[in-house]
């Protein structure tokens, strides 16, 4: 059996003494503004872990005393479709670079597909140490089997210690398959990453239970440590002026596979379904007329949000009934609900009050919506929303 271990990540600890106060066994000392665990007193109750506000103390079992050796470097998977990079690629390169610097490790990108020279030329400018390129007609369209075959063979050959991919529909289908081949750990849909430099551990934080709980996960014994990263969370990598990076081309004899791509149909059906949307931008009487929903649409487009409306807006004929939220419309529970020019009558609240974050923008400081809002802005939505849209555009890119 492996035993539990407790340790403090020094660079995160600021000596605040919260853990010292929480410890019922007098097992923590603060030495030179850092918490130090007296192992002889500690019974691993976890009180300090819960008390720490900086995520600096961890308890885990089966953490090897020595870091796993023989693996080096951080790899990021470059997702591309029809020769175009997925936006998340820039984000994981940015994050990968940050982690690589902390660890003193190299950063490489893995590019799979066919006829990808132009992508190599593009990627060169993103502070990568290496690009692993597998250019093969069998990889021209993404399919789980050939991609997982090539990827796992590359990893077996070059042994990176950390592997990151985007938590997109491709990433979340492909990378579990790769991790399964390699028999290593994989953490899905991470929203924040960090490293424990001393133990060379990737600290992977992700929400679970619909965001009601955050969990920090490690993969202590197996390599590489693999994670998929939620899009739009990490900062994009900055472009450098000089495109310098080593290109390693590889070739594998890809065996025949059992899934065959037939065709792709672009779905022009509809925007995000209201009930499924993570973010809803909703408009009410304050919008004044149908045309003004355009400014909400612009904000929604930037956020990937759906458009909702109060009954007042629907009754006025500004938007169709399918957008109505409230007692007589749909009941929604998104992560973010942005109520614009909605007073917040009891009927409307009935349809959206379980939203995680409610943002209210309204001229009337006494509007009942502010009672339910997480954040409120009292003011003119016609001034505020375009500014918000512009600001978000700058941050999120196109």
């Amino acid at each position, binding site marked *: 059996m492996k035993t539990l271990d407790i340790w403090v990540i020094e660079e995160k600890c600021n000596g605040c003494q919260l853990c010292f106060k929480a410890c019922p066994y007098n097992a923590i000392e603060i030495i030179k503004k850092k918490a130090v665990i007296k192992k002889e007193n500690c019974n691993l109750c976890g009180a300090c872990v819960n008390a720490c506000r900086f995520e600096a103390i961890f308890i885990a079992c089966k953490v090897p005393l020595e870091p796993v050796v023989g693996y080096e470097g951080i790899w990021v998977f470059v997702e591309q479709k029809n020769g175009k990079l997925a936006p998340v690629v820039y984000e994981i390169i940015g994050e990968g670079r940050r982690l690589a610097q902390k660890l003193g490790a190299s950063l490489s990108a893995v590019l799979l597909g066919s006829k990808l020279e132009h992508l190599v030329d593009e990627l060169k400018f993103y502070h990568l140490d290496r690009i692993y390129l597998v250019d093969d007609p069998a990889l021209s369209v993404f399919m789980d089997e050939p991609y997982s075959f090539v990827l796992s063979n590359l990893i077996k050959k070059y042994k990176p210690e950390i592997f990151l991919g985007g938590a997109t529909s491709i990433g979340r289908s492909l990378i579990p398959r790769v991790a399964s081949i390699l028999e290593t750990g994989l953490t899905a849909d991470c929203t924040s990453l960090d490293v424990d430099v001393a133990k060379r551990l990737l600290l992977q934080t992700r929400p679970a239970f619909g965001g009601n709980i955050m969990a920090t996960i490690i993969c202590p014994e197996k390599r590489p440590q693999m994670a998929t990263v939620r899009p739009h969370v990490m900062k994009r990598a900055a472009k450098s002026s000089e495109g310098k990076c080593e290109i390693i081309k590889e070739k594998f004899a890809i065996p025949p596979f059992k899934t065959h791509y037939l065709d792709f149909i672009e779905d022009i059906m509809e925007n995000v379904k209201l009930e499924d949307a993570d973010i809803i931008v909703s408009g009410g009487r304050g919008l004044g007329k149908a045309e003004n929903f355009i400014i909400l649409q612009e904000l929604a487009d930037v956020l990937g949000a759906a458009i909702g409306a109060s009954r007042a807006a629907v009754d006025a004929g500004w938007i169709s009934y399918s957008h109505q939220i409230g007692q007589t419309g749909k009941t929604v529970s998104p992560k973010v609900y942005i109520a614009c020019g909605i007073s917040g009558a009891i*009927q409307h609240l009935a349809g959206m009050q379980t939203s995680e974050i409610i943002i209210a923008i309204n001229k009337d400081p006494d509007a009942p919506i502010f009672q339910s809002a997480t954040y409120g802005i009292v003011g003119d939505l016609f001034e505020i929303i375009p500014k918000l849209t512009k600001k978000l555009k700058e941050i999120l890119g196109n």
Partner: protein
Amino acid sequence: MNYFLTEEQEMIKNLARKITDEKVIPIRQELDEKEEFPWEVLKVLSQSDLMGLFIPPEYGGFGFGCFEMCLVIEELSRGCGGVAVTFAANALGAYPIFLFGNEEQKKKYLPDVARGKKICAFGLTEAEAGSDAAAIRTSAIKQGNEYILNGTKQWITNGGEADIYTVIALTDKSKGIRGASAFILEKGMDGFSFGKKEKKMGIRCSATRELVFEDCRVPQENLIGREGMGFLIAMKTLDMTRPGIGAQSVGIAQGAFEEALKYSRERKQFGQSISSFQAIQHMLADMATQIEAARALVYAVARFIDSGAKEFSRESAMAKLFASDIAMNVTTNAVQIMGGYGYMRDYPVEKMMRDAKITQIYEGTNQIQRNIIALSLIKEASSWR
């Protein structure tokens, strides 16, 4: 309150509750506004086997009794009285076949009913024969191997939507009600047509139409029982199904009560939840007590019937009478508690109040129920020494 349901009864109740919560409540307002027949819900009820609840296993059903039917009707009514009456009227139409039909008739019709492939309706009421059911005029004249039906039935629930109709008509006008007989009719028979869909105050998703017979030829094998048994068949059937109206009333009242209770905790006036005001508290307490009393009576009567009782007109009438008066009272007070909001169609209680009203009227007005009860009491007293 714990009514000590068996495991099976618990199962039936939970299933009906799930259907109500997931498939009825989300669409009830739309059904009501569009006056749209609840085919979607009937499909779910069929898939879930509930359409065959009361039909014996040998005809593809489950052989459950009046009590289990009441459990389902109550749950459905908590969501929508219109859906519930559609379900209940199906049973009402099938009961005569199940209670009085011969083997061939049962074999022919009941399996399809049990599977929900065919829907039933019951035709007794006429324009001039409402409370005075004995005043019916629809005639059925025997001609060779057939009966020729002429006349019009009025306000027939599931009319036009149902496939199978049990219809009471006079085979011998000279004998009055002793000349009435019960027939099985099928949609599509020559000379059998429907009037327009009635526009009702409540239970709007249910279909209510005239059945029109113009020289409609019905094969003699479609006669239920014997000639002259029609009125007895109708009365016995209604005795069986009347607790169902009681259950419908309890369900509607329960639905309205839950809305009012929830609202009273959310609604703030004078700086506090209106549920903190004693005026509201006492109303809620009375409503809950009345509902529980009605439920206890309905359940007791249904169980009495299922125990094999021979004569239960009085008890059956009491259950319907009491529960439906309670439903009207409770739904009215639910609207009152919710004030202006309760009066708006945004909230379901105004619909519940409209739905509740019919329970005091159909399957015998509450005045007729009182007659039945009183007559039975007086008859009983006459046997005293």
